[in-house]
Every structure is written in structure tokens, then in C-alpha cells.
């Protein structure tokens, strides 16, 4: 999922010699073939990526400048689809939902994940078992967990009914069927699914912090919370960046969860851009507008990851 190699730091000069393992150029025909073999081996994958990633992006850009409705048409009509897209009320709902959902999902996942990582780092008995429990939702499909959450959040049979049966007949928890709160149920399920992953990221980072620094601060009389807040967490800043980038691009791509939990409803109150795109392209015969919305998603992801990739590449050349 993420980019760097934990244990590897190139020694000085090592990275300056690409192909250092290859035989010297004067090695004759066989060596020549061997050198090109490397390119030949990568070529099929690279060609597939060029076509299926970059070629398809260009294709989608092209389609978005046509008037494609039910079937793709290849007649260019300018940026009509984009101006139409930005006049659709439903698109604004999807964008607003993405901001609400993304902000809360990233924020709460980070808080819960970091809290759990720090708590688990206190010489806990049964740490392995707890870690396994915190992280297992990541192994499951959103369609599976969404099915469970949909049922739990269903006012008639889930938590609301359960609490009412306990003797609180006035208790209400019906976010999933309300227009203005349905999007928050997405946050509940998504945080449940992904916060364990944040925990794993930060726990691994905490284990990499130099223990001597902690010891010194402790002997200076710093309290444990102060040590974590003032020394440990700042020293693992890069992990915040990685976690943020991963969570943010997951948020933009969220599709399965919405389909399984709310279906974008009630109405289209909990639509996200990904469900909007699918609806336009495959159900409403608005292929050009669907393509335009897909490109907006791509632009958002690029805006998030390109600075990240760039700083990583510049930093250690380890990407």
C-alpha cells in the first residue's frame, strides 16, 4: 500500500550506480542480451499499464469532451459535460458528502488509530490477540461488513429497537433513514473498518523510535503523556503523512461501502462522487457527464498523492 522500504538505506554511492549488478558493457553479446532481458521482462507489464491506466485516462478525457449519452460517441463537443456536471444539484450533494465523510473519516480514524497504538505500546498482556481483533475488519469486504452495519443501524431491528426494548421507548437512533444524517452512518462503518489499519501503521512506527530518547526524557522527569505528545509523536511525523494520504485516497474512492450500507439513499442524500459516477454512466445514460465526474475524482487523488510521491522520491529515492 505504501511506499518506502523500512530497513533499506542505500549506502553512499550505491544508488549512483544503476545496473551495478549487471556485467560490464564490454562483456560481449551475451551480456548485451542479458541487459536487454531486464527491459524485455518489464515490457509486458509496462505496456499493459501504459494502455490500461494512462491510455484509458486519455480515453476517458476524450469521452468527457463528447456528447456521449447511452453509448460512447466520438464526436467532440467541447466542455459541455463539465459545465453540465457543475450544474447538477446531485453532484454538489456528492461533493459535500465527500467533504463531510472524508474529513470525519480521516480525522476520527487517525485519533482512534493513534490512541490504540499508544495504549497498546504499554507492555500489554495479550497484545497480539488485541491487535488481531482491531485489524480484522480490513480483511473483509465492505459489502460483507456493510450488510452487518445496515442491519445494526436499521431502526426497526437494530440498536434503536434494542435500547427501546431495554425500557427506553423514546430512544431514537435512525440516522440511516434520515436525509441529513445518512452520510454519518458511512463514517461509523468506515472508521470501524479502517482505524485498525491506522493503529498498525503507528504501532510499527512507535516500535522504531529510539528507546534511549524516551529513557533520557523519563529520567529528566517528563511524564509519559508528555513524552508521547512532545517527543515520540513528532518524531514519527512521516507516518502521519502516509496515513493521511492512504485514508484520503480511500475516502475519494469509497464506493462499495455506500452501495452496501445506504445505496446512496435516502434518495441520493448519501451519494459520494464514486456512486454518482456509476449512476450517471451506467444507469442514467449520461456517459459524458459520468466521465467528467470520474476525472474530477482523478484530479482529487492526483492532488493528494503527487506531492506525496514527489517528496518521497526527492527524499530518499526509495520509491
Amino acid at each position, binding site marked *: *500500500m*505504501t*511506499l*518506502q*522500504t523500512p530497513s533499506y538505506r542505500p549506502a553512499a554511492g550505491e544508488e549512483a550506480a*544503476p*545496473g*551495478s*549488478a549487471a*556485467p560490464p558493457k564490454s562483456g560481449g553479446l*551475451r551480456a548485451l542480451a542479458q541487459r536487454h*532481458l531486464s*527491459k524485455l521482462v518489464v515490457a509486458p*507489464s*509496462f505496456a499493459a499499464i501504459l494502455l*490500461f*491506466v494512462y491510455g484509458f*485516462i486519455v480515453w*476517458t478525457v476524450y469521452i468527457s469532451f463528447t456528447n456521449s449519452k447511452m453509448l*460512447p460517441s466520438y464526436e467532440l463537443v467541447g466542455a459541455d459535460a463539465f459545465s453540465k456536471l457543475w450544474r447538477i444539484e446531485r453532484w454538489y450533494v456528492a461533493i459535500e458528502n465527500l467533504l463531510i465523510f472524508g474529513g470525519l473519516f480521516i480525522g476520527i480514524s487517525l485519533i482512534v488509530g493513534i490512541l490504540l497504538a499508544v*495504549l497498546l505500546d*504499554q507492555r500489554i498482556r495479550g497484545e497480539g490477540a488485541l491487535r*488481531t*481483533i482491531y*485489524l*480484522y475488519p*480490513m*480483511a*473483509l469486504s465492505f*459489502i*460483507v*461488513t456493510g*450488510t*452487518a452495519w*445496515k*442491519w*445494526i443501524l436499521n431502526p426497526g431491528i437494530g440498536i434503536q429497537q*434494542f435500547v427501546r426494548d431495554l425500557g427506553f421507548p423514546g430512544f431514537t437512533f435512525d440516522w440511516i433513514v434520515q436525509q441529513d444524517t445518512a452520510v454519518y452512518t458511512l463514517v461509523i462503518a468506515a472508521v470501524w473498518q479502517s482505524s485498525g489499519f491506522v493503529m*498498525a*501503521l503507528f504501532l*510499527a512506527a512507535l*516500535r522504531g523510535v529510539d528507546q534511549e530518547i*524516551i529513557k533520557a526524557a*523519563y529520567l529528566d522527569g517528563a511524564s509519559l503523556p508528555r513524552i508521547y505528545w512532545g517527543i515520540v509523536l513528532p518524531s*514519527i511525523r*512521516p507516518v502521519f503523512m502516509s496515513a493521511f494520504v492512504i485514508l484520503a*485516497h480511500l475516502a475519494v*474512492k469509497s464506493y462499495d461501502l455506500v452501495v452496501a450500507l445506504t*445505496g446512496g439513499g435516502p434518495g441520493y442524500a448519501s451519494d459520494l462522487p*464514486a456512486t454518482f459516477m*456509476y449512476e450517471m*454512466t451506467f444507469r442514467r445514460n449520461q456517459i459524458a457527464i459520468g466521465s467528467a*465526474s*470520474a476525472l474530477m*475524482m*482523478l484530479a482529487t*487523488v492526483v492532488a493528494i498523492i503527487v506531492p506525496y510521491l514527489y517528496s518521497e522520491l526527492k527524499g*530518499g*529515492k526509495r*520509491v
Partner: protein
Amino acid sequence: MSSLTSALPPAQGTGARIARWGLYLILLLFAAYYLLPLLLMIATSFKSPEEIRTGSLLSLPRDFSLDAWSYAWNRACIGADCRGMAPYFLNSLVIVGPAVIISTLFGALNGYALTKWRFRGANIVFGMILFGSFLPSQVILLPMAQTLGFLGLAGSAGGLILVHVVYGLAFTTLFFRNYYVSIPDDLVKAATIDGAGFFQIFTKIMLPLSLPILVVTIIWQFTQIWNDFLFGASFAAGGAQPVTVALNNLVNTTTGVKQYNVDMAAAMIAGLPTLVVYVLAGKYFIRGLTAGSVKG
């Protein structure tokens, strides 16, 4: 991997003991929070419809019944097709097997070529492949649907295998590339001096060293492809659909009385393979998730 605070002396006194209890309490409450939906799902799948109607959300099944499971497995209606989840489960297996093997194989070869036989532009090639792992699939849905149509693969398992191989390459290449970069180049150098060639070195030296990353990659790919919904929903037609799409259709089938125990059993059937892999090899799954995200 020792605890950060293990360098410190254990805290003494009553206050410390209370704090310790509080700590465990919080951790256990979180464990309950993560476990509850799964336990509810399991418990409900073993209940009868009457018991779900009359009983409480949190109660254990009184009359333990496997009816919902067998019904979900081979009788439940998915759309108009009342053969249960079984045929779709099989579809997923047919898709996942080849897709995992092929994408892992290409990933290993790419990782090897990009680290041990670096050519000019290898970094750019890798960067361009890597970008694929962040790509929002929505951007390629329509062109892919068209292309699968041209290729005569529309709606088939073969088409889905192709899609999963192509978009899995970014991850498999990343995993192997980052693993091989930490294997000393001298090993390869020594072997070339001994006259070993590109593929010989790969099979005789690199592959035997690759077991951990092989497991990580296979588990990662298996989980991703098994859990995929978007590609399955977009590119597979009717009978060729994977298990996640079937589950969603089953849950949203509105005809007849809603059978929550069958829904939950079907969800468990769809989730069990990845859950079992996680329980058996969680260590490798976590390593895939966090694959080197921490700066050394």
C-alpha cells in the same frame, strides 16, 4: 519489536495500578466494539426468523440452527436465480486463482528486473507503474467495459481475470521491488561472474529468498480480488458474477419476507475465505498493509 516503554521501570503504587486497570478496560472496550458486528452476524445467522423477530439483538441463539446457512448456500434467490451463493462462490474462486498467480508472477519478475538489472529510466518506469495503485477505478470503467467488449471477454470470468491482473500489477511490483532492493546486489554480481544468467539467478537465488514476500503478496492479492465489488459489478454478467456482487443482490432482493438470518449467513459465506486467511496468516496480511510505510 519491543514496546517503546519497556526501557522504563514499571510504575509502582496504587495510582499506577488503577491506571493499569483503566488501560486494560479501554482496550477491551475497543475490542468489543470491533468484534460486536461480527459476533452479531454469526449469532443471527444461527437464529430462526421467529427468534430474530421476538428476541433481542444481543441474545445468543436459543435453538442453534444451520438452516439459514444451507438456505443461503444453495437455495436463496439472487435475482431470479435461486441456486444460492454456491455458484457465485465458485465464480470467485475461478477468478481469484489465476488472477493471483499471474499478477504475483509478473510482480516478482518486475521487482527483480527493476532492482537487480536496473536500466536507464527504471525509476520512471517503476513510478509510472506505482501510480496505478492509487488510480480511482472510476476513470477506467468505461474504456475497460468497451475494451472487454472488443476482446470478446465482456461479462466473463476471463475478462475479470484480465482486469484484476492488470490493476494488481502496481501492488505486486511494489511489494517485490521493495523487498528485492534490500537483498544485496553482491549476490547477483557473484552469480553473474559464475556465469549464471538472468532467469537462472531469478529461479536459483532470488525465488528461494522470496518466501516471505511471496506469502505477503499472495495474501494481499487474494484478499483484494476476493473482496472486489466494483469490477465484478461492472464487468461480470449474471451467472459469472463474483460472490460479493451476489451477496449485494441477495441482500437487496425485495421479493418475499426479509430473512435476516439468511442475509447474515450469506455475508459470512462471502467473508469467510478472507477471514480464515487473516486468522491463519494475519502477520503477513499486516505486513502487506504496512509494507514499509515506516521510515527506517
